[in-house]
């Protein structure tokens, strides 16, 4: 058996599967975006640009903008809280650290929908959180905590914060903490040392955390569907609505293509920065 032949035989199963069930479907979606729908919800013959003209209707820029700012804000909040957590975890003893990590990951292992449901029942008009806020005088009894953008933001942060903590911790673990002492000796304040020494030190983790939070949030569908309302829909909701309610597959495909383009930007950015980093470390060694 030649080496080339051996390589192909062990590469082919996974590659074939992924080409067939990942690459082809993705191309199919891009293609269907240029088709018409038939009356009974199927896909028409011939090519058209009508679907795209329909997508650029007045209500969509709002939905795209909302998707972007909700994803951006979720990522920022997750990073803001995860950085101190990763700092603290990295300075713990090895055993305490493992237990703390397990404690952080554990809720992530419970079913995602169940966690969203837990928030739904907390924020519900009869829920405890709502009742507590009313009792404290922070919310009026008629106030609706559910079905708005803030509920969506809250649950998005809740769901994705472990995804931000893990890569940041992985970076912080490798950080040389004596650098902080050095900065302090040279006269930097606590906060100054943290911001200008620790944060640049974990920049690789920050990029990873950004990608693993921002991208899935862009495509989120279940969370805005359950705790959000008509005024807090994201692109994902519009895609699902076109598939399950309006039965307009070309329209859904056009929206999915749009979402894919939005997702591609941060991916290309992270590949670019990683390659540049690799090149600069390569030069050093």
């Amino acid at each position, binding site marked *: 058996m030649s080496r080339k032949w051996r390589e192909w035989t062990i590469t082919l199963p996974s590659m074939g599967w*992924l080409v067939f069930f990942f690459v082809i479907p993705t191309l199919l979606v891009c293609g269907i975006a240029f088709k018409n729908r038939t009356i009974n919800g199927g896909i028409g013959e011939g090519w058209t640009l009508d679907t795209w003209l329909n997508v650029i209707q007045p209500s969509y820029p709002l939905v795209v903008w909302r998707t972007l700012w909700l994803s951006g804000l979720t990522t920022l909040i997750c990073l803001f809280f995860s950085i101190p957590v990763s700092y603290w975890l990295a300075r713990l003893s090895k055993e305490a650290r493992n237990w703390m990590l397990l404690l952080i990951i554990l809720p992530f292992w419970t079913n995602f929908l169940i966690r969203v449901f837990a928030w739904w029942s907390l924020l519900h008009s009869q829920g405890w959180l709502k009742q507590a806020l009313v009792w404290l005088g922070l919310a009026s009894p008629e106030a609706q905590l559910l079905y708005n953008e803030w509920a969506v933001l809250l649950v998005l942060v809740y769901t994705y914060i472990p995804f931000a903590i893990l890569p940041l911790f992985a970076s912080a673990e490798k950080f040389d903490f004596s650098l902080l002492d050095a900065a302090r000796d040279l006269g930097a304040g606590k906060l100054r040392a943290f911001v200008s020494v620790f944060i640049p030190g974990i920049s690789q983790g920050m990029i990873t955390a950004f990608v693993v939070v921002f991208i899935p949030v862009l495509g989120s569908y279940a969370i805005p569907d*359950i705790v959000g309302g008509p005024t807090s829909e994201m692109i994902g909701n519009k895609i699902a609505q076109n598939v399950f309610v309006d039965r307009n597959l070309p329209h859904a*495909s056009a929206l999915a293509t749009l*979402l894919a383009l939005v*997702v591609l930007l941060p991916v290309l950015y992270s590949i670019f920065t990683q390659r540049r980093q690799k090149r600069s470390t390569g030069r050093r060694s």
Partner: protein
Amino acid sequence: MKNRSKFPMFVTIGVLVFLYAPILVLIIYSFNDSRYPGAWQGFTLKWYRTLLEANSVEARDIWRATRNTLLVAFCATIISMVFGTLAAWAMYRFRSRLQSLHQMLVYAPLVVPDILMGISLLMLFVNVNMSLGLTTIIISHTTFCISYVALVVLGRLQDFDHTLVDAARDLGANGFAVCVRILLPLLGPGIAAGGLLAFTLSVDDFVITFFTAGPGSTTLPVQVYSMMRHGTPTLINALSVIFIIVTFSVVIFSQRVLQKRDNSHPHI
């Protein structure tokens, strides 16, 4: 370091409270004698009884969904363990143009949002006239599980000592013997860890399943979703608690096993 800031510790405690509080409330609600989440109406076990007695409509649906979920997860895990391990081995063993393309293909499903994978697979199944059901769910789950298995196994392969394979070959072992007697035992833990991850991801998946499931092939997350939308939300509480107990014990158990193994073979 005496005057180290207490701030990061407070943030961590705050984050942990934030992570666990809803789950705790869910557990308390599961014993609440009220049809809707809200004021405490008294302690009851009736939700658990409805679930476990299996003669109610809800219980029957839930157990069927559980069976579907486990069946899908089992099939997707087995297929993705084989394909993912092969993929990892190919990427580890060969450095070529083909492998960088292969690597890109394997990593891509990890960054693509679920909804895009869901809709594109749905379009494929619609186009080839495949009726939606358990088979389409298994195919979809396998597609994202392959990448996770490959990633985990590839991680383990980084510490793999390839001279063992050369030694076995020098001693006259053929390709098959090398696979069965050297590779599988050494890579076993990595493959198992990848399989465990694939299994949990498959059980947990909602969005992709929602797009590729047909009538009668409801899995547990999809069932929970429809119960949430129309039906008995309080029953979900009890179901969640059973779910949480099962997953927490599996995770803690596997963590224990993995940690013990790591301790017995210290990495140099």
